[in-house]
């Protein structure tokens, strides 16, 4: 192969004249100006600009936007569901931690304060019907909440 002797790489060096030719060719091509005779360098760059401005022959499918929007909506719904599940699990964890620490405190310190309780007063409190009604309301509300979440998440 007949090649010129290899020279040090100067391609990285910016040549303002060459750059100006590239930019002029691009501007002329975009403006649709007729090619200037006798300037082969400009003609090469104009051809280049013309080909580079052409979109790829391969295209996205016609229903790409619709399919992508559907997929995004499904992904968002899955994220919302995962967030809700995480929130519920966190809530449950907090309740368990609270219950565990409460039980621990009860076991540790009950011996000191439980004897001071008046048994008659506790029995009197439990005998009041509004207290039972309140407990029933809280229980029902909790059950309805569980049922609603189960239905929502399918």
């Amino acid at each position, binding site marked *: *192969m007949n*090649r*010129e002797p*290899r*020279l*040090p*790489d*100067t*391609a*990285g060096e*910016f*040549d303002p004249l*060459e*750059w100006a030719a*590239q930019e002029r060719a*691009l501007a002329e091509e*975009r403006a649709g100006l007729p090619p200037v005779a006798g300037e*082969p*360098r400009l*003609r*090469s*760059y104009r*051809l*280049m*600009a013309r*080909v*580079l*401005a*052409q*979109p*790829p022959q*391969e*295209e*996205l*499918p016609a229903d*790409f*936007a*619709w*399919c*992508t*929007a559907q*997929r*995004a*909506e499904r*992904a*968002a719904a899955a*994220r919302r569901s995962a967030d809700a599940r995480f929130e519920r699990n966190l809530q449950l964890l907090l309740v368990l931690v609270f219950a565990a620490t409460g039980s621990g405190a009860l076991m540790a310190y009950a011996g000191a304060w439980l004897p001071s309780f008046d048994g008659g007063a506790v029995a009197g409190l439990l005998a009041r019907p509004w207290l039972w009604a309140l407990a029933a309301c809280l229980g029902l509300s909790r059950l309805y909440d569980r049922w609603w979440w189960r239905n929502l998440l399918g």
Partner: protein
Amino acid sequence: MDACSPPNPDRDLVDAVLGGTPGAFERLVHTYQGLCWHIVYRMVRDPEDARELCQETFLRVHQCLHQYRQESALKSWIAQVAYSIALRHLQRKRIPLAEAETGDGPSLLENLGDGFDLEETFGDAQVAHRLHAAIDALPPVQRAVLTLYHLEEASIPEIATITGLATGTIKSHLFRARLRLREILEGRLGVAV
């Protein structure tokens, strides 16, 4: 919205998507799918991978749209997402992103003369074929920069926003890529086409 403020289609579209307006996200995808496809396909070149990556781009856009602060045009923001997703894909596949800086290559300018007439030497179809093959032979980052500059008509500062490259680096990529294309077109580098 203030009655005197100019209409901002980007903001309206983003508000519609965030507000859950039916069809708004599909409209957004439809508006910007060409831009995304041009960037990703020119970088990745494999149509199947490019389609998947375009879909990934829009899923990411849907997920992160609330983070869009309108500091740049929506077009630039989406192009930025597409570019980084394509870049990450190429990195995962260990495909070199930019040309290696070697000291033993011939000087492109040294090899080029002013007397070469491309159209006289090759027919139009042959030139286009040769050029497409030459574009494919460029490194992915240069292909992306050329696509943004020539096809999407993005300015150099816009390309800097999209790619995160310095404006000087972008100019250098453009300059070198076009010079290399000219060299290949004029048949001086012996690239098989």
